[in-house]
């Protein structure tokens, strides 16, 4: 940074002189010139000396005065120069800071852009994943159907006689295919859950009608398993509950699926709905799914709602599952502000109950 030269210094060619000396010299010079002029004019000696004194004094005082002002000026200039220096240093610093700020802002913008992109990519990935799962599971069911039907036709003897040994092996193949299909069906349900797990869409729901529509999906299965599927409704109209019909259907599907899976041929599965006000202070409806199936062993009752838990007797039967159904069901019922519980006797059957509040108030309390 260039420092400006203080302005009070008198310039003489390349050199600079202190004004005090400059004015002193000029004063002495003028006094001498004036002295000679007076003497040449022939004025009396006493007079010209007396005349010279004030002039010289004036010049000397002027010299000092100008010198003092110049000194002040010089001091001011020096301060000013220092200040300018300081300010310009600050300006430089500000410039640097500004540049840094701009750089940070740009980085921030880039990061934000990157994050937005990454987020978008994640969302797309999530959608792609769900779509992938849905498509592959559906696609997987097609060749599995072919294998299952082929095994079944072989077992029925439709494709010619088989030896007892062959029959046993074909039976194993058929059972394995059945298990694989069960797992794929569960995966489809779980993924379906996953896709819209966050958004619950609560609205007034006619619970008996919802039960009817879910039970319709099970009529074929009940028929082929020779299990009697029945429903009981009170004769009076029930109030509507505040619920997400899709999520609630899923709970019913899970409970019915379990009941059907673990109920042997000739058994019975019953769904009933009623007013739960008799049993609890809050006004809610209660749904019960009863079966005459294998039951839940007493030592495993605490674990039944755990993720991936499957009853030891359930594993022994050939039907397969992921152990997610009840875990998901409890989560859904609790989000509705209701409760889910069960009673069971091993070998005799199980009753699952859940309640759904009639008023929305109960929901916000949760």
């Amino acid at each position, binding site marked *: 940074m260039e420092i400006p030269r203080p302005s009070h210094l008198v310039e003489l060619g390349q050199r600079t002189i202190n004004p005090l000396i400059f004015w002193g010299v000029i004063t002495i010079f003028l006094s001498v010139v004036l002295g000679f002029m007076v003497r040449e004019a022939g004025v009396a000696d006493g007079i010209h000396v007396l005349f010279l004194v004030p002039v010289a004094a004036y010049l000397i005082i002027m010299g000092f005065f100008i010198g003092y002002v110049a000194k002040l000026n010089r001091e001011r200039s020096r301060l000013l120069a220092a200040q300018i220096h300081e300010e310009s240093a600050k300006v430089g610093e500000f410039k640097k800071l500004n540049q840094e700020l701009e750089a940070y802002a740009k980085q921030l913008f880039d990061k934000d852009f990157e994050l937005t992109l990454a987020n978008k990519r994640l969302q797309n990935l999530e959608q792609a994943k769900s779509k992938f799962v849905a498509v592959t599971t559906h696609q997987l069911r*097609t060749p599995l159907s072919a294998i299952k039907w082929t095994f079944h036709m072989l077992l029925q003897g439709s494709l010619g006689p088989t030896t007892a040994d062959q029959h046993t092996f074909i039976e194993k193949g058929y059972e394995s295919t059945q298990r694989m299909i069960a797992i794929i069906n569960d995966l489809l349900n779980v993924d379906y859950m996953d896709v819209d797990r966050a958004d619950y869409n609560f609205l007034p729901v006619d619970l008996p009608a919802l039960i009817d529509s879910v039970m319709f999906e099970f009529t*074929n299965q009940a028929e082929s398993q020779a299990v009697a599927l029945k429903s009981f409704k009170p004769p009076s109209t029930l109030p509507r509950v505040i619920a997400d019909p899709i999520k609630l*259907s899923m709970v019913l599907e899970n409970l019915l699926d379990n009941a059907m899976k673990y109920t042997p041929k000739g058994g019975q599965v019953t769904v009933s709905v009623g007013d739960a006000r008799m049993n609890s202070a809050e006004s809610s409806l209660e749904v019960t799914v009863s079966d005459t199936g294998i039951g839940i062993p007493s030592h495993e009752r605490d674990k039944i709602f755990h993720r991936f838990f499957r009853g030891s007797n359930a594993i022994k039967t050939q039907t397969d599952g992921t152990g997610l159904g009840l875990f998901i069901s409890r989560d859904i019922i609790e989000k509705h502000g209701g409760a889910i519980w069960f009673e069971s006797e091993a070998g005799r059957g199980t009753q699952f109950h859940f309640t759904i509040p009639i008023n929305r108030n109960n929901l916000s309390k949760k």
Partner: protein
Amino acid sequence: MDKNNVSGGQTILIVEDDEFLRSLTAKRLEKENYHIEVAVDGENAISMIDTVRPALILLDLLLPGKDGFEVLKKIRETEATKAIPVIIFSNLGQKEDIEKAKALGVDNFLIKANFTLDDVVGKIKKLLVDK
């Protein structure tokens, strides 16, 4: 009389794009003495229904071109075909699919992987007897 002859040669139209599934289904139904016609896609199915006038249609959902829902809609909209029993026989089977098919007036919805062909024969017989 043999119970296999009860069907008395009624025509069943199988709409299925997968060749092996189609041939297995046809083979099994032929054993029941049904007369089998096959269609491999939606457009094909619609023109076949007009010419063949089947007693029952076994309809897949995922088909090239027009899908099973469109075919079902067309069947129900056409005066001459709207009374024909239709069984959706597909590997789709999420709640929305079942409800959509129900709304379009399907008679039964069977997920292929969850049933054997014997089950399907049972369902077909039930629908044709009820009719």
